[in-house]
Every structure is written in C-alpha cells, then in structure tokens.
C-alpha cells in the first residue's frame, strides 16, 4: 500500500525548544539541482531577541558547570553527530558538496568538538597565571566567560564553520546565539536536533536561520551580546563595528572575502577560546 509522504518541517533550536520564527515566515530551500527541498524558518530580530533571552537564562548554570562536565557534554554532542553522520552528510550534500566532501566535513566537525571538549579543563592552565609581584601577595589572573556571544556563520562549510565559531565560546561557559548560513541552513537545523539530545542545557546554543540583512543590525546593537564572532563582508563588518562600539562589545570579525580553510588545524586553537574570555586579576595576601 502506498504511504503518504512524511516530510519534516524544519524548525530552529532556541532555548531548548524547536520553534518556528515568531514572524511565521519561511523561505524555500532548494537543493543544488534547483529542486524544492523544504521551507526554512525566516527568523527575525525578534527571534534574535528571544534567543538572547534564552541564552541569558541558560548562562549562569552553564558557566557554573565544572570544566570537566562541560568537556563531557561537548564530547557527548560529538557522539550525537557521529551517530547521525550519514544524515548530516546528506544535509551538507544538499548544497552541492560531493558525498565524500560532505562526509569529510562531518568528520572534521566531530573532531573539532572533541578538540574543544579536551580543552575545557585545560585552557585555564594555559591562559590563567600567577603573576610575580614585589609584595607579599599572591597575584593571579583567572579567566571568566564573557556571557552571550553572537555568531554569524559563513556559507562555506555550513556545519564545520558554524561549529568552529561557537564551540570555543561554549567551551569556557559562554552561551551562544548563532545565525546559520543563509544558503545552506539545513545542517544547522539538523544540528539543533543533535544539540537537543546532547545533555547540553537548553539555551546554551541557540541556532537561527534567515537572512543576514534582517538580523545583523540587531546583532550589532543588542546590548546583551558581549561579543560577535562572525565571518562577514566589508559592509557587514562596518555595521557590526559601529553597533559594537555603541554597545561596547568585542568583535572577532573574519573577512568573508578571504578564502579560509576550515579543515586546517589552524582553524582550531586555544586562542579562539581566549577570544571570548574576560580576565580577572586578583591580589590576595600571602597567608602566615
């Protein structure tokens, strides 16, 4: 007997829930051959606002987890992707990547998460310090997560680049609101489903899909976002820099015009973790 086709409604993962855009708008996603694939939520600045609220709620709890536990959870996220690797590869292949290239990207994304999972309880030893001072004090510098980080992912390597941008931020206890690639949003939709089963508390990573032009002004000016980590063109960089100056946020802006190898080992580093940390230096009297 012929079955009715069961097609999935893509939803974005925000605050631990799968939602449609509050605007109820969608945009059509077509595969490389031009065939209609699905309607993707066209999120708005209000969805961004709601995602920031969700991230704010999740922030303190996530930052308070032990570094070891954060590592376990990042590792668990990698496990969840690994288990559905072929499905994820098919999602990447929608954009025209060969099956082999898509599989390679999924593997690299999993490895990237494992890489940062390993760093959670180690970066403090590298980035923190006991400083020499000429008085009977301990003087030490420790790191703290900044808070809520905005991420804007590029179109190339839609999964690997997205993960490379947000993983270092959550490694240290930040929470993230990320805008996925506009042309290839489907891997981010799938990733949401994996985040949901990864033990990562809801709201730590919030993924939006939609058009950059509608959301970049809000990414730039939102006072609650502490930093923006983005791959953006010249006009977007200007908008983000201006807005960030007004709201005093850090910008880590990679140029979309430049070719970037997301697979390279240089695309992952402890420096990327440092990008979304604040440093706190404390004087403490030496005990008798």
């Amino acid at each position, binding site marked *: 007997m012929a079955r009715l086709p069961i097609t999935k409604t893509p939803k974005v993962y925000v605050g631990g829930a799968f939602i449609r855009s509050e605007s109820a708008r969608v945009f059509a996603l077509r595969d490389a051959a031009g065939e209609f694939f699905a309607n993707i939520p066209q999120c708005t600045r209000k969805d961004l606002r709601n995602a920031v609220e969700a991230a704010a709620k999740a922030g303190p709890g996530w930052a308070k987890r032990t570094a070891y536990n954060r590592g376990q959870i990042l590792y668990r996220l990698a496990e969840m992707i690994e288990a559905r690797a072929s499905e994820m590869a098919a999602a990447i292949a929608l954009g025209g990547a060969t099956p082999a290239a898509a599989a390679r990207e999924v593997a690299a994304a999993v490895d990237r998460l494992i890489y940062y999972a390993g760093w959670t309880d180690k970066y403090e030893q590298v980035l923190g310090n006991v400083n020499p001072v000429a008085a009977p004090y301990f003087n030490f510098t420790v790191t703290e997560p900044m808070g809520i980080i905005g991420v804007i992912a590029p179109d190339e390597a839609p999964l690997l680049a997205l993960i490379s941008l947000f993983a270092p931020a959550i490694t240290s206890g930040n929470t993230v609101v990320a805008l996925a690639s506009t042309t290839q949003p489907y891997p981010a939709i799938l990733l949401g489903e994996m985040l949901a089963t990864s033990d990562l508390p809801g709201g730590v990573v919030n993924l939006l899909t939609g058009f950059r032009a509608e959301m970049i002004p809000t990414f730039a*000016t*939102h*006072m*609650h976002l502490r930093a923006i980590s983005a791959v953006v063109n010249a006009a977007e960089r200007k908008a983000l820099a201006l*807005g960030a100056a007004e*709201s005093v946020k850090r910008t880590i802006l990679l140029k979309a015009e430049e070719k970037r190898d997301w697979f390279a080992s240089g695309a992952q580093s402890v420096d990327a973790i440092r990008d979304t940390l604040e440093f706190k230096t404390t004087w403490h009297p030496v005990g008798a």
Partner: protein
Amino acid sequence: MLVRSPQAALQRLFDEVGSVDQIGIDERVVKYGTRSVKKAAKLWGLRTAVTMVDLTTLEGKDTPGKVASLCQKALRPHDDASIPPVAAVCVYSSMVRHARRALGNNSAVRIASVATAFPSGQAPLKTRLAEVKAAVADGADEIDMVINRGAFLAGEFDRVQDEISAVVTACGAATLKVILEVSELETYDSIRAASFLAMRVIRPGDFIKTSTGKTSLNATLGNNQVMLEAIRDFYLDTGVAIAMKPAGGIRTAKQALTFLIAVKETLGDAWLNNARYRFGASSLLNDLLRQLEKEKTGAYQAPYYFSEAAESY
C-alpha cells in the same frame, strides 16, 4: 434536620451576582494577546504602566536599608529623568515607617502596606485590625488586606463582609485594597462572587486585588478579566467606581500591555490611570524600563544596565 450548607450559600450568592462563562472568559482573554500595540501607543502604554506599578518587596529578609533603596527606585526608576515615578511602594507593615522616612511626607510615591496577617490572614480579627491601625499611624497611604478565605469557602459571607467593613473603618483616610487570593477561591464563579462581596462594603476608589503573590497561581488575564467585569457590572448597577490591582506573576512589559488592553476594552479609558488600576509587581518595572529604553535608542537592552529592583513577587 436542617444544616448549614456552604454549597447552598455559595449557590445563592452566584444566583444573585451572576455566574461566569469560563470558556467565554478564557477565549476572550486570548484575543487580548493578539492586539498589535506599536510606536506611540506602545510608548504611552509603557509609561502608563510605570505609573501604575506598586513596587513591592514582601520578604522575611526585608530590611530598612532594602526598603530605602526600593523607595529610591520608586521615585526615580531610571537615570532617564523623563520616566515618571511609580504609583506606590508596597511593604510589610513593620517597614512602613522606614519607607516614610525614605520618601518624606510629600512624596509623589504613596506607601502601601500589606496588613491583616498577610498573606494567610489567619490571625484574630483584633490582631489584624491593630496591624492596620499601626500601619496607618506609621504613615501608610494604602492598606492591602487579605479576605478571610476560610470563612468565604464555608459560606460565612456576613463574616467576610463584616471583617472587611471593620478594616475599612480602621483604615480611616487610607485607601483599601482587598486581596481575594484568587488561587484559593478556585473557580471564576467564586472570584466574581467574592469581588461583589468586597465591592459592596468598600468605598469608591478602593481596590479589589487578585492575589498575595505568595501562592503558586497569581494574577492571570482570566481572573483579571473576571474581576474587571465584576467591577463593570457593579459600576453599571450602583455608579460606584471600584479600582483594580492584579498582583503577582506579571513580569514582562508585554504582559503589562496586554493587561492594559483588557482594562481599556472592558472598563474604558476612565480606568487607565493609577487611581483606578495598579500592578503589584517588582521585576515588571525593570522590564518596562528596558522596553522604554529600547523604544528610545532602538537597541535591545541588557538587564544589568538597570538598577536592581526587589526580586520578590
């Protein structure tokens, strides 16, 4: 043998004041959330809501210092001087004199005190009245009392009303707010009935108030609507205008605007001021300020740019 039956007493009261169509109310209030309030109307609504806030701290850990900072926040909610002060501060009766010292005698912000063994009301009437008198003597402009829910549910309506009357007398010039504690009345019918019992013995300009904020279920659009309609019907019958205060659970500006829409569409513009409508809240104020600042600057605001309000309620 004839026995006293609370059910029969309640039924007689329902027959007298009319019952509530629960489905109708629930459907009606869902519609309020669909109104689109933007730009100038939104600004007006937000500012009006600020002027309607009873900024509240009702915790065992309240101190004179904490009340003093609450009063400062009430007078000057934000560093933007164009933002008006709130309607009142709402504190425990033992804190009234500290609030009076912080606000001075000619303050734009009134002092409301919960009294009558808030939140349970389970104290002898004499004790409750003494608390009201003490709060008024210490400088309270408004008294928030709780009704005797036990007596209400037992069908002893005369006792409920007599106690409210006694508190009215004890209040003197102070405005009275009668807390029905809707979550303990259980049905819309009971809320309407209790509203009428209270309205018949309080004075024009006195309030009926949803809840103490100390139970699981607080002000909802539904029970707000039931009470607004009771006020409307009572006004149409008697010409006496009773004011309304939802309290507890109203935390966001969006919620507050939706409540104001309910007021506008049920009672009209005459109730859209702080003599006739209040919000019992604490965290609401900062969200209103955030949204006002957002309307002014165009940028979404972070909560930490606003001074801390009391975290209770």
